[in-house]
């Protein structure tokens, strides 16, 4: 009955550090290793935060460029992924402050274009859905939860996504958000309650 996180991400920090040091000594190719390794995680974070494919690719690109430029400020006490997520979230917040994303999002899918409707952003995994009917039920449930997440205030939305989509530990979330682990627990609890209430209303 217990749901465990089956795919918790364990970055091999030593290997990353090696690459980062290579980058710092002028080897740009080493950076492409890091981009390749983390690009989809960064993309996923942006996608779940904004709900927009095109912007998310752009945000992912900017994240890596910013990371590259500030590599000399990288603190090895962080895992590279936490540091990267922090940069990505800052970019997203900057953009939200500046313009178009409504906060909170509209409950329906934001800015969805016809292509995305045909190829839904929240597609169910093949490993999950067996027949079309089940797939549709799953799809509905996914749409449901994403819409609810989109309504959450930013600070709740980000903590839910970091915990449940990116599968970060409480400790790592604390590093990304610059808050103590106890606060992670409290904020996560409040965010979940709000999310649960939103789902209950449907």
């Amino acid at each position, binding site marked *: *009955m217990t749901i465990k996180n089956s795919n918790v991400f364990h970055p091999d920090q030593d290997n990353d550090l090696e690459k980062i040091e290579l980058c710092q000594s002028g080897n740009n190719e080493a*950076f492409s290793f890091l981009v*390749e390794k983390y690009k989809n995680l960064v993309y996923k974070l942006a996608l779940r935060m904004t709900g927009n494919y095109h912007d998310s690719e752009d945000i992912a*690109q900017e994240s890596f460029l910013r990371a590259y430029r500030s590599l000399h400020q990288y603190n090895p006490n962080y895992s590279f992924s936490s540091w990267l997520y922090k940069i990505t979230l800052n970019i997203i917040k900057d953009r939200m402050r500046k313009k178009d994303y409504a906060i909170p999002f509209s409950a329906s899918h934001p800015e969805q274009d016809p292509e995305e409707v045909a190829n839904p952003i929240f597609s169910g*995994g093949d490993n*999950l859905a067996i027949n079309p009917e089940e797939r549709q039920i799953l799809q509905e449930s*996914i749409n449901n*939860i994403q819409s609810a997440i989109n309504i959450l205030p930013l600070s709740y939305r980000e903590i839910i996504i970091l915990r449940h989509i990116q599968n970060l530990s409480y400790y790592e979330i604390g590093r990304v958000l610059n808050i103590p682990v106890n606060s992670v627990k409290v904020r996560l*609890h409040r965010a979940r309650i709000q999310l649960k209430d939103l*789902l209950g209303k449907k």
Partner: protein
Amino acid sequence: MKNSKCQNVKEYIEDYLEGRLSEQEAAEIEAHLVSCSDCQKEFKQWQKLFQELSSLSQSSAEEQLPSDFTAKVMQKIAQEVPASTESWWEKALHLFTLPRVSLKWAAALGMALVTLFLGYNIYFSPITQYCPNNLAEITFSMRADASQVKSIAVVGDFNDWDPTRNLLTDENNDGIWTVTLKLEPGRYEYMFILDGQKWIPDPSAYRYVSDGFGNKNAVLEISKCKDVGINE
């Protein structure tokens, strides 16, 4: 019915669903849920939330960037200042590589001449496709944030390293500072000076040499016009 046991169970539902409880603690929760419909109802709501989050997480595993994403990022990075140049000025400024010393007439003459050039110059010097009066028009350019930089001068063998003679300007405020000089064919070492005190090599120079004082100068080589047979 509310009692302290129920309160206790409700407090630990999330930890239970996250698998953070010991076997014994989990067993206690499960035992209570069987006997208490109130807690069971609440538990089911939490369970539904966790299940939906989990399916969202798994569907996310399919979301992938286009396969050329990394190449695009690396291409952008390659256009920035090389990571090997000194970082003291790199930190102070936002500098990006620009299409270096460019010659006005390059495009008109096309690739054939460029190829011809390679035969004459060991280093692919950008220069001398067209030489009115045997002078090459060279545009030095650099990207710099006007809020951080007040002046940029170019100094080199062509102006006796005099920082007052050739200043770069950014007239249209696009962050790209330029100055165009007419130079005779030859080999010149040069540097940029920011705000009268920071010396930096042109980030987009073709080559650099040591200045003998632990820094490096940018090098500009201008072929003689007769080398390519277009002397006027």
